[in-house]
């Protein structure tokens, strides 16, 4: 491991100051669950780690001071919240069920106890070609080995930019299903963007191919969750080989808001199959204004994977994710 310096930030300003170097020279560390093995494998070689674990402003879960048009108050989650805290929080479990469920499905209990919300959203891809040292787009090369290699677990079925590894986060699709926004601190001031813009798929930022759109001198401080309409139900379904400590082969975060038996609003977001949390508006549109039937759920599920272009080794992911979407919709509409 190349020697590096650690800076313990006490405030967001201190963190931003420490981060303000050239691209790739400083990295933020909180739980360290994604970063440390990449350092050990020499995939990243920072000079400075900015430890934000002591920044109190980044912690906690609270209602926002400002209300919204529909009368509800958004919930604001600090990026230092651990995945265990998210999985166990009564408010999240009741109002943002899919988010709490997704957090509970991440990795293993040990990792959830130290892994943070911010780290889970900003983690880079896990792909066995990258880990095995192949010179791919993420590692100095100009090829994605999943394209001609073995994509059964880590390949997207929707075409992405250069690197075709699926986005590994469980929490991100669930947050997108609630129209979450990311609050970002930067030397030029704070800004708030839809989570979908934080996680647009593989994106070049200052010459680095990243899984998120943050610049090297920026910090994800909080995630803001708008208050959902009254009768809102949500769930996260994850499919994998093992019951624990496994990334999703496919996942579905579905949120439906009802007026009586009629679906008033819908979000269908796929995980494990694209280079970003993959929202399927066409599937959502089929559901809105309708009573949910088995046929409608199946149609929406089929719609959700329209445009999928899987590799020969991961075409089964399309079947799997359709089943997850269909079952999630039916579960929310009819229970069970």
């Amino acid at each position, binding site marked *: *491991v190349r020697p590096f310096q650690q800076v313990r930030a006490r405030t967001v300003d201190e963190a931003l100051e420490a981060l303000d170097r050239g691209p790739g020279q400083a990295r933020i560390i909180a739980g360290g669950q994604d970063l440390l093995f990449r350092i050990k494998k020499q995939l990243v070689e920072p000079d400075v780690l900015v430890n934000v674990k002591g920044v109190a402003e980044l912690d906690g879960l609270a209602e926002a001071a400002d209300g919204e048009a529909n009368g509800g108050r958004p919930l604001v989650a600090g990026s230092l919240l651990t995945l265990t805290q998210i999985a166990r929080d009564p408010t999240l479990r009741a109002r943002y069920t899919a988010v709490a469920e997704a957090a509970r499905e991440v990795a293993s209990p040990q990792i959830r106890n130290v892994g943070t919300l911010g780290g889970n959203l900003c983690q880079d891809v*896990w792909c*066995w*070609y990258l*880990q*095995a*040292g*192949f010179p791919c787009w993420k590692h100095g090369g100009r090829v994605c*080995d999943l394209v*001609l*290699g*073995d994509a*059964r*677990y880590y390949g997207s079925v929707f075409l992405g930019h250069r690197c075709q590894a699926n986005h590994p986060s469980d929490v991100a699709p669930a947050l997108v299903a609630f129209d979450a926004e990311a609050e970002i601190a930067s030397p030029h001031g704070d800004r708030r963007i839809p989570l979908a813009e934080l996680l647009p798929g593989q994106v070049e930022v200052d010459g680095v191919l990243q899984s998120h759109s943050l610049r090297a001198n920026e910090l994800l401080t909080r995630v803001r969750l708008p208050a959902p309409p009254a009768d809102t139900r949500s769930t996260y379904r994850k*499919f994998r*080989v*093992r*019951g*624990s*400590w*496994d*990334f999703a*082969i496919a996942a579905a975060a579905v949120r439906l808001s009802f007026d009586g038996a009629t679906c008033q609003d819908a979000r269908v977001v796929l995980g494990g199959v694209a280079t970003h949390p993959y929202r399927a508006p066409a599937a959502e549109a089929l559901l809105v204004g309708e009573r949910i039937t088995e046929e409608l759920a199946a149609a929406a599920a089929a719609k959700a994977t329209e445009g999928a272009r899987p590799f020969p*080794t*991961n075409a*089964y992911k399309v*079947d*799997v994710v359709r*089943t*997850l979407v269909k079952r999630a919709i039916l579960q929310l509409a009819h229970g069970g």
Partner: protein
Amino acid sequence: MTQAPEYAFVGQRVRPANAVAKGTGAHKYTADINLPGMLWVKVVRSPHARARIRAIHTEEARALPGVAAVLTYQDVPDRLWGANPAATQEGERIFSDQVNFVGEAVAAVAAEDLDVLEEAANRIRVEYEPLPMVLDPEQGARPEAVQLHAYGNVVQGAPGQPSGQNKRGDVARGFAEADVVVERTYRQLSVHGVPHEPRGAVAQWDGQRLTVWQSTQQPFMIRNGLAAVLGLAQDQVRVIATNAGGGFGIKNSPSLEGAIVGLVAMQTGRPAKIWYTREEETLDGHVRPGFVHYVKAGVTRDGRITAVQVRSYGDNGYWGGNTDGATGIAIPRDMCVNVMELYNKIANVDWEVYLVRTNHPRAGAYRARGTGEAIFAIECMMEDLASAIGADPCELRLRHAIRTGDQANILKARGFADTKPVTIVAFPDCLAEGQRAIGWERRNREPGSAAGPIKRGIGMAGAIHVAGSTPSLVAECRLTIDAAGGIRLANGHPDQGSELQTTLKQIVAETLRMPMSAISTINADTDECPFDVGPISSGGAFRTGTAAFRATEAAKARAISLAAEMLDQPEGALAIADGQIWLEATNEPLATLAEVAAFAGGTIVGEGRYVGKDEPVYTYGFAGTFAEVDVDVETGGIDVRRLVCAVDVGRALNPEIVEGQIEGGVAQGFGTAMGEGMHYDPRSGATLNQWFLDLKTPTTKDMPRVEAILIEKGNEGHPFGAKGCSEIPLVGVAPAIRNAVFNATGVHVDEIPMTPDRVLAAIAQEATGANGGRAP
């Protein structure tokens, strides 16, 4: 059936001596050994699956302060490496100027600390000239394929000949007699043993003798191999097998780490230590070879199997079995014979095994070597034959199964002149008890007939495996009673997790009629212990246990003889119990064992041996494995709800330990069935899944409770009636689950691991009516 004798210690649930230390982390492994002035050693590995080394530039590494040694093929002895290299074709050296798989060792660096070590390793530059590769065993077996080795690609085969074969009867006539012929192709990936503790070794050289501590199952083989490659006499090398954090067969042969640290220690005069990372363990440990089996079998409508023809192609990697010849000779030879021993009433068999050199990592022994490579094919075939004629799968198996007193054909296949009678076969009991436990009558009459996307089914598989009595294997023990009354059993058997030392103490205690607390053992040290081949082929309690009994009997006889002289009593009047010599007639203690040892001049020593080829009978182990599953036909997910494993253990010397071995074996079999298996990049041959995450070993959330059933009908081949049983629980799990999936869905999933992609592909294939078979 004879009444089982009553024992005071044997058969009791004695807590394993090391259980608490292992659970609390106090146990010492190789990584815990640190010596003053010790160097750290790291291996530089090949990124190419096949390449010639044009040059290695080591100057920059050698120039780094703190670097003590750099070794390349130019610095290692020009001697063959392996436990018995002369007996194999491999011709492996510690390093050479050609690499043959991604991850093969190219050079080693020794340095003062880990930071310098890593930097030095990074500074070694190797110029490679890539060469054409063989990555597919079936293609590699063809004559027109690139030939990787002086002896060709097919291991141990003369040109055009298979690596191993089993022919009996006349299959052409058998197929002519068949009413139904089933042809299917069964596949299994190569699979790694994934011991929790990766390989490691520490070496110390005192100018005359080399001491090596190593995580290994076979300290005596390591000693012999080290002596040969380093140019030392065997008595100049001492190997101490540290308690292995898991071996599972893949630590049963000399891997390079001990030789590398030995060489560093001898060249620098300083102790040296190496400890593989998980990636290195995966790349340069070894795997069970993956196979494709083309099976064609005939059966009559009334349930007589008339012919079985199999062609198997296996992935040997380049270096078989870490150069001990385990794969090169034993795997193909045993796999086509062993499994057909279970069904020795099938008259016509024609099985050829081609184990093929490729540019993948080493293949070799893995828990249940010789059975695990083949049984998936045969146990799936039995299910498919039964379903083809509407027969009960258990009844079809029993009709063709081996019986007590049959001759063991395996011995002839292994080159021994005579066969021997097989001791008790409790296979029918295994199936009966398993059927009762799982509720066999609940299985679907019509496979796949259940409504809905989630379908439940029940399936089973039979199993046979060696139970310790392999003719070529030897164990020796020495029991010493000292003049202070101490009793110590020396045995060369390392602990890889089966806690044999506890079982051995039970045997000694039973034989001497002494409390276990009076007995100690020393083990796995080539200086202090007599020879033992180690924990391979299910032989711990069987071979070493027999030798321990015989050593104790010998010491007892010697003590009685000495006591008779000392006390002036006839030998026949004396007995030993509780550390005393008793006059049987009056039940009166006459002297302590300590006094007799003092009379003898200090110690009473008894030696005992188990020599497989000299034993009059042959012992096989048997098992019946039963699975109940829910299959989600829309996702390809399989939820294994129950696993019942009924094992013919002869007699459980310590049921606590035996159940632990069954639970562990079933879990490992579950892994091979459900997710484990090596993924090699189809273009480069590189291993893609090198980490715990991607090796997909099962977790507690995946495993159902293992329902272990001990069938205890005794065994005349062992002094206490035991059969070795640490391997057999593994092998039936994958076919039992596969057959349960068939019972649930009516779909043949013919490849393990049965991951969702394979299950969905099988469902889609059957929907289009495609057949997985091919005429061999």
